């Protein structure tokens, strides 16, 4: 008697999920599609070309470096391309310009050099599996040290010139219009493609470092938020100049949620980084008033003139103006950096959050979170040693 049952499931002959290292990184790429798309819309074709330049230069350098010794073969295209995309998202679109910079540099060489540096760092750090420091962070911070001014964003496309506009054809819109109307509803009056303005991160860091020179000799925190900062929705959508991938906070969050949904990142890390950083921003001393000199206060919430609404609005601006959400979702969760043990990840994320708040308030809004993450990642191997798994049985 032949008795056979048809069974629909488990037909795959291999006892393996089929997901390879290349697919692992390509799934990450799908998460990055959201900030990438937002960046290309906000900064136009120059953004697309810049990211392409970083990716191509990384690929070519990897091709060369893969020929060099056994360590060269450890450098994988899939990992390199993913990291190149991340690096591209952290750069401003105006780098793709033929005009010389303030010190006579050629900005368009920066993305190409960045891609090459990234590949070289990957090789130096040992390639796939050996890296414990994020090559993108080192490359970016090195770029900041070498070309700090070139990495400042200055303009963003007008909403009716999305993607097709040239981000370098920019003009300065009326200041009152910028303050009152959000970018999404602002009427475009000139024939230029982009709006030039100071980035929110520059305004914030000047204030929190106490370097702001108020025009009338007095500037309170409320005054800063009311008169100097753009509408918060500009920062959420990306209507203020910034790096390609980190400007649109909403796109970054959607991309991060996608990564969580696919199980590629641990939800605790971004949650803790952002939560701790937000709390630290409310606690750490900030200037509540800048007159002849800045008056600093811990717990700005408890200062009578500030109160909850202003302190929380300030923390919101700090969170949105810098790359903190991008760092929390796309970099802090990187396998090369975060600890393996679950409990260790919580501490790592908390440390990263505190450092990010400190460095963002007192060093730089633009690259403070990157530096914070680099410092926190140095703790990861130690945390992995301290926190061994707790087996269930």
């Amino acid at each position, binding site marked *: *008697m*032949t*008795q*056979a*049952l*048809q*069974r*629909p*499931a*488990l*037909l*795959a*002959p*291999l*006892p*393996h*999920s089929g*997901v*390879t*290292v290349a*697919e*692992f990184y390509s799934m990450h790429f799908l998460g990055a599609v959201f900030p990438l798309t937002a960046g290309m819309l906000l900064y136009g074709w120059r953004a697309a070309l810049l990211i392409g330049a970083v990716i191509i230069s990384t690929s070519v350098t990897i091709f060369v470096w893969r020929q060099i010794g056994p360590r060269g073969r*450890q450098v*994988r295209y899939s*990992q390199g391309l993913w990291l190149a995309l991340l690096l591209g998202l952290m750069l401003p679109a105006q780098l793709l310009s033929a005009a010389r910079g303030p010190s006579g540099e050629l900005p368009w060489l920066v993305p190409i050099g960045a891609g090459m540096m990234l590949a070289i760092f990957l090789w130096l750090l040992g*390639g*796939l*599996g*050996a890296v414990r420091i994020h090559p993108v962070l080192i490359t970016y911070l090195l770029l900041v040290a070498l070309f700090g001014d070139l990495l400042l964003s200055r303009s963003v496309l007008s909403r009716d010139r999305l993607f097709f506009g040239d981000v370098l054809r920019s003009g300065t819109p009326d200041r009152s219009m910028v303050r009152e109307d959000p970018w999404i509803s602002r009427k475009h009056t000139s024939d230029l493609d982009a709006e030039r303005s100071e980035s929110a991160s520059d305004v914030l860091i000047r204030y929190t470092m106490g370097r702001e020179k108020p025009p009338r000799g007095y500037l309170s925190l409320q005054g800063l938020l009311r008169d100097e900062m753009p509408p918060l929705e500009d920062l959420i959508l990306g209507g203020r100049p910034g790096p390609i991938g980190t400007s649109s906070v909403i796109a970054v969050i959607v991309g991060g949620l996608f990564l969580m949904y696919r*199980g590629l990142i*641990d939800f605790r890390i971004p949650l803790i980084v952002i939560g701790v950083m937000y709390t630290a921003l409310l606690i750490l001393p900030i200037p509540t008033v800048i007159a002849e000199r800045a008056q600093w206060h811990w717990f700005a919430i408890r200062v009578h003139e500030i109160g909850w609404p202003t302190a929380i609005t300030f923390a919101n601006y700090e969170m949105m103006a810098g790359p903190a959400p991008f760092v929390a979702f796309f970099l802090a969760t990187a*396998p*090369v950096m975060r600890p*393996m*043990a*679950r409990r260790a990840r919580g501490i790592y994320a908390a440390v990263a959050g505190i450092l990010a708040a400190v460095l963002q308030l007192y060093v730089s809004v633009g690259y403070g979170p990157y530096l914070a993450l680099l410092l926190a990642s140095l703790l990861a191997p130690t945390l992995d040693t301290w926190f*061994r*798994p*707790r*087996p*269930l*049985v």
Partner: protein
Amino acid sequence: MFGAANFPRRVWVPCIGYPHGETPLIKPAGLAVSRGQPLVYRPSPQWHAALAPANGVIVGPGSAWLTATHEVPAVAFDVDPGPAEGSSTTGVVANPPSAPPASRRDLPFSGWIDRLRNLGVWADRWTSPDLLAQLHACLRRPIDTVVCNILDVDPALPLQAMVAGQWPAEVMAGVATFASLTGAGRAWLAVSSSIDESAWTTLRSALSGTDVRLVPLRNDFPRANPGLLMRELSDRPLRPGQLPPEQGVLMLDAAAALAAGRCFLHDEPMLTAPLAVFDQITGRAYFRTVPVGAKLRDVLTDIDVETFGARLFAGTPLRQELLNGDCVVGGGELTIYRSTRIPDTNPDSCIRCAWCVEACPVNIQPAGILEAAQREDPQLAHEYGLEACIECGICAYVCPSHLPLLEGVRTLRRSQRNARTPPPEKDARKETRRNPELPEP
């Protein structure tokens, strides 16, 4: 329904429970033995009886593979041609009794253990730890729960559920009698909550009049593992290698309960075992009752499944428990998967994705254990949770780098076992245990 497999011409009846280096005293070659009679001279109390699955003739000593790496002594036995007698093992007994006959009810627990052993009842597989070792352990410490594990490792190949559905009275009798013998206050049948209504009704009706209780559970892999099941049912920790009685529980699966139930009710020896085969190449599943000692090659040939160029897995492919055509059927793994040969993959370096950590059902760090295996560092492996690993294979399944994580665990455990095992006995001692009636080699 389970179909009866044809008896192969020759079977290799495994002799289970013999210590390393010991050989059984096998009856002389050429001796005709009838069905259910022992093939070895009086076994020691620790050794299981090897019984003739049908009428036939002893060929001589041999060896049988339970898995691709586990070899035991065996008796080669030629089965007489013609229909096998006493095929009740493959069929359903009409209105079976629900308790052992009155004449044997006053038999002590140790007497029942001897009886089970003499009737060749044994089970030692992933879902049902060594039955006789558990029963001996039950003599030493109190048991409060008997658990019959009807959860199938792969719900799509429901061997345990089918055994319980086809022979509910025998399974219930096995569980209820064990509960009564051990004095356990609770007897539970752990079943998948997704079993169909008819199976549910069958089990419920079989349970009527007994103290056995149905416990529906979500059957997601690898919940059928005794450690996880015990954690789920009674929140007691059971480390791999430990026997459930150490935590006050006797655990067996439906196939083991069936073999024991038949012994209790009808004094029937365990001469066949239910077997499920899934052919991943054609997508077909086969359910058979197979003589103990039949080689898998013969069983698969009987059901027209080609073994050449294929790879056989026991339990579930995830566990990567490899078999070959020479492995024999018995009280070991009862679900067999046939798949195409897996092409060799060159593993990448660990990218620290931590998928193995996230997927691990017992919260250990498989990548760390592999690192410890590469460094040959047992202390590091201990810190990463080696002792808790249940070898479910999920880590190796999800690893994007194709790292041999499960192999790392097994390598470490093998080396630890080897370090503990004393060197083999001298050959001279083996000679003294040889059966004088056997021809010289």
